[in-house]
């Protein structure tokens, strides 16, 4: 980032999670090959690479989304700190994982419920029933997602009445309401116009003060704008990882440089 004059050695930073020798398979097809990647606490890590490079697949390992589909298989580990447990362990309940790691998807996917109930959903399925608690948390989440002022008078309207950009911020609010430790963004702006995109990026900037973020993006400028660290992936391999400005301005690998300068991809 431009505002950071002195970049500390990453090894001195606290880790929130780390992929260790992670392999992933769709049936016989190997989609991730021996990925080793640290995710630093309260930093934004961007995953870039051409379509089909495995960046979304990698992201979806963190909250065990692949468990929903038959024929998928993980090998290796994703360790979550400070617990220091392997999220991919059979003894780990994916539902518990998903309660601590939230995800925002490519296309806004609000539930067919009111704006209020969308944001309250995570709390409701955790058994929270007290209206006053729900109200407070929903307000806080909507404020953190920079949506409160636009929706505070229409909380009971269906979420589908919002615009695309508002819907995506609603989905972010929904993820924030349950106070996740790690926020996973899967190309969150690819279905949005430039103005809505700018507001989401601004939001990511604010959120990284409080929360660790892992973001998959197709848009290299976006990665450069929002992230502290960048990982470049290609065909299931992690090619390069480092501080974002190092990856963009002083890439160590020829492949990364070719992709970033637009000679490829």
């Amino acid at each position, binding site marked *: 980032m431009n505002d950071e004059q002195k970049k500390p050695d990453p090894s001195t930073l606290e880790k929130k999670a780390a992929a260790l020798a992670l392999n992933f398979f769709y049936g016989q097809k190997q989609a991730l090959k021996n990925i080793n990647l640290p995710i630093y606490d309260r930093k934004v890590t961007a995953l870039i690479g051409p379509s089909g490079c495995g960046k979304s697949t990698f992201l979806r390992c963190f909250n065990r989304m692949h468990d929903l589909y038959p024929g998928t298989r993980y090998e290796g580990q994703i360790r979550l700190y400070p617990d220091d447990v392997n999220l991919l362990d059979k003894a780990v309940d994916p539902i518990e994982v998903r309660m601590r790691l939230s995800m925002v998807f490519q296309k806004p996917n609000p539930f067919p419920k009111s704006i209020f109930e969308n944001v309250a959903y995570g709390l409701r399925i955790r058994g929270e029933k007290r209206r006053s608690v729900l109200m407070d948390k929903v307000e806080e989440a909507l404020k953190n997602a920079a949506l409160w002022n636009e929706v505070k008078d229409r909380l009971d309207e269906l979420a589908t009445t919002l615009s695309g950009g508002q819907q995506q911020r609603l989905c972010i609010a*929904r993820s924030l309401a349950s106070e996740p430790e790690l926020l996973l963004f899967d190309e969150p702006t690819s279905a949005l116009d430039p103005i809505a995109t700018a507001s989401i990026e601004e939001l990511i900037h604010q959120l990284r003060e409080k929360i660790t973020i892992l973001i998959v993006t197709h848009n290299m400028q976006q990665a450069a704008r929002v992230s502290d660290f960048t990982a470049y992936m290609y065909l299931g391999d992690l090619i390069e990882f480092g501080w974002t400005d190092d990856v963009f301005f002083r890439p160590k690998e020829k492949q990364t440089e070719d992709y970033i300068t637009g000679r490829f991809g």
Partner: protein
Amino acid sequence: MSQAPIAGRLAYRRSRHIREQIIEWLLLSSALVAVATTVGIVFILVKESLVFFGQVSIIDFLTDSQWTPLFSDPHFGIWVLLSGTLTSSAIALCVAIPVGTTLAIYLSEFASARVRETAKPILELLAGIPTIVFGYFALFFVTPLLKIIYPELPGFNLLSAGLVMGVMIVPYISSISEDAMRAVPMSLREGAYAMGATRLQVALNVVVPAAFSGLAAAYILGISRAVGETMIVAVAAGMQPNLTFNPTDQAATITAYIVQVAKGDLPHGSVGYQTIFAAGLTLFLLTLVFNLMGYFLRKRFREEY
């Protein structure tokens, strides 16, 4: 520039356009067959009913508590038949809506592909059983079974007819509901799973509300099937017109009455014969109301993704 003659390969090809027009007419006429049939049926129903209402006042038709078209002192109170139709349909729906919806949720959200591919053809088979078979199943199997619990139950009763009718309607409701639920985009389910929802929570909180317009359509179709069902009630509920909402009574429904008259005891043109048109019109209006309700429900709860 002077007008050059149009080159051969750009010339207007009459034969192609005529062929297109013929196809258009063929398609239109097959659509017209369905529309014309409906219009024809409504026309006959209304025309013959007008003859009936020329002899019997509409007030009597709606308020009389007896239905005795064949007696020397005839009464034409449609509520007597309507009560049988409504009671048997209500029983059927009490079975078909919960069972059909649960089945659809299971098939769409829980069952493995293998279970689903096995269960669906079996359900379709159930939908293909002739209703007369269901009728005798109700009369000779379900009624004796119910008599074990409730010995005073008459041989003909609305309860057993309604229950079996409910079973008959289950595949219609489950199949349409399942289609509606499967049409809910995966991204919506993933959104809920990503929040830490269980499969049941995803199914009930997200998939069912998102598919609600389809479910409403399924229920309306179920209601229409129940109201219009003939053979099961004619066989198992008795033919005795009876103003009752008690499921353990025997009673004739509108459809059962029409079957009885149409079997031919009554001379054409008599008031008794005309009653079947008035009864048919009532039935038609009833299903029309439900279909309109379904239409508005669908519009109101339509979710766009």
